[in-house]
């Protein structure tokens, strides 16, 4: 049994704990949920003539995600353009995640199996792109792949092609740019997973009649799966919201959700639709992650 004095001291300590974490909690609540609540409220209002919102309740923005209203007869039609933007976002993000994994897995393995000094140097190199602005890096890719860019000039010069390859302003260019930009986000968690990986398990696998491919599939991959999941999430989420890369490498035509939202708050002057699209993006990402994580964990141990 605790005495009354002890209980009082306990209460005091607990109160002090809350008090000390109050700034962090305050910031979290305001910074995390505040904007979200504002976005949610905006999505149920009417657009103002010159941007901003009219404080009138309306579900038009939500209907507008999937349907567009004919300006002449006022009937609603399925908005193909919106759907293709959603589809492109999901498709490119999945490709980006997949290829970041395909390139990141061997890269992370390579780094993790070097000597400690070499490892530090390589990790340092991986993080160098973070030092420069995303915009600058994306323009660099633009310079390489555009029709008069380094790649096409070179290929024309050596005579492999007669006309420049149209790479820039295609979905492929967007995918290429995003894979390049988000690759480190896959490599780093994979490296952390390989770093913890007990290399002696490889010998145990070979000893028990597993081929190299079986060792990779049955031992290495399942053991580092948490790293794969973390890396995939870190790549997929920003890919879905990407907006600089598709703007610069995809041109105006190959929009992703991010650009579409940007458009609503800018030239489109339809803030409620932009807000509704933002919430939709959030829901898509949340559902995709929930499904992915559940799926990835389910076959754990039965692989």
């Amino acid at each position: 049994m605790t005495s009354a004095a002890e209980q009082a001291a306990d209460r005091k300590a607990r109160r002090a704990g809350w008090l000390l974490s109050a700034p962090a909690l305050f910031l979290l609540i305001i910074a995390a949920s505040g904007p979200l609540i504002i976005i949610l409220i905006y999505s149920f209002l009417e657009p103002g003539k010159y941007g901003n919102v009219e404080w009138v309740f309306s579900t038009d923005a939500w209907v507008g995600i999937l349907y567009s209203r004919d300006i002449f007869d006022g009937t609603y039609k399925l908005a193909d353009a919106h759907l293709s933007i959603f589809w492109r976002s999901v498709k490119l993000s999945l490709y980006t995640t997949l290829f970041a994994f395909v390139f990141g897995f061997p890269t992370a393995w390579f780094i993790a199996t070097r000597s400690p000094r070499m490892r530090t140097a390589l990790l340092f190199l991986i993080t160098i792109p973070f030092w420069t602005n995303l915009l600058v890096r994306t323009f660099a890719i633009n310079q390489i792949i555009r029709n008069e860019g380094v790649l096409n000039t070179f290929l024309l010069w050596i005579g492999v092609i007669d006309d420049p390859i149209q790479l820039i302003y295609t979905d492929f260019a967007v995918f290429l740019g995003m894979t390049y930009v988000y690759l480190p986000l896959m490599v780093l968690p994979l490296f952390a997973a390989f770093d913890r990986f007990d290399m002696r398990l490889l010998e145990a696998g070979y000893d028990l009649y597993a081929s190299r491919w079986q060792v990779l599939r049955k031992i290495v991959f399942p053991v580092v799966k948490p790293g794969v999941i973390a890396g995939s999430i870190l790549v997929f989420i920003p890919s879905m919201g990407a907006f600089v890369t598709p703007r610069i490498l995809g041109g105006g035509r190959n929009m992703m959700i991010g650009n579409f939202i940007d458009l609503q708050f800018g030239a489109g002057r339809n803030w409620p639709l932009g807000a509704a699209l933002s919430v939709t993006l959030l829901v898509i990402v949340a559902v995709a992650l929930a499904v992915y994580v559940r799926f990835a964990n389910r076959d754990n141990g039965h692989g």
Partner: protein
Amino acid sequence: MSKSIAVEARAARKDYGTGAHTVRALDGVSVSIDQGEFFTLLGPSGCGKTTLLRLIAGFETPTSGQIFLEGQDITADPPNLRPINTVFQSYALFPHLSVAENIGFGLQMMGRPKAEVNHAVEKMLALVQLESLASRKSQQLSGGQQQRVALARALAPRPKVLLLDEPLSALDLKLRKEMQRELKRLQAETGITFIFVTHDQEEALTMSDRIAVMQSGNILQIGSPREIYNHPVDRFVADFIGETNFLTGRVEAGRATLTSGEVLSADVTGHAGKVTFAVRPEQVVICAADEADCLAATIVETVYFGTDTHCHMRLGDGTQIVARLQNAPSGEIGLAPGEAVGLRFEPGALQVLAQ
């Protein structure tokens, strides 16, 4: 009837590194291990015993020399093609798999049908008495249990040879003793050739059919535990296996004499000149100071060990001798430091080692 040979290493040499940094881990070792034998590689760390084991397992390829399995040259075969399994020092259990899946892994990789794998796993679980833990993950097991899983996993594919790399070193003393008996039982039940690596001489003596004592990449002596203990070939083996007293002296005209001049009775066949005499502490007998045929000694200190007392003595020339005396029920041996005593050696106890 001569036993057939399970594993043979012929002039196996292993160098690590290149150029000036070359380290020779194994210096042309040749050894034959019989079918169904419990063979131990014993030596201090860095003696090459683990390297030899890894050559047999196939994790390393020898710089020169060959490895044979039942007469076939397997030197170039990768480990997954050798019907040899290993129990690793760290166990190296697969953390993402259950106990049963760990044990079945080898057979599964060999492409055996599921029913056969399951049957073998059940048999193995029974053999190592872990039936109740089949679905646990390896991190949820104690050290001793992990050890058993590692054993079952390596035995399940019924290898021709089982390699054990210091498998008991991580266990506490009591568990180690238990696992030593268990290993012997498993070997008797399965009839598989065991090659066991250890630096623990007591473990080697209690478990092995034959022991190879290794030092700096060479095998110094191969023999049964009794041969190794009673007839060590040199000072290193005598010192490494058990405790030993060393005395320096000479063999001249078939007579063994200490440097201080006393004559000892020993089998000196084949020895001449300066030699070292070795005698085990339990073969040293303390007698009265004035008794005939005894060496004069002074008690330095006595150390109580429960079952026996170690009595440290000094001879006239300063040589330290330890005698191990079994304790009487009273626990007293009645000797005090500084006391003058005599000592002699049990007949046949004195070994002559070349200098």
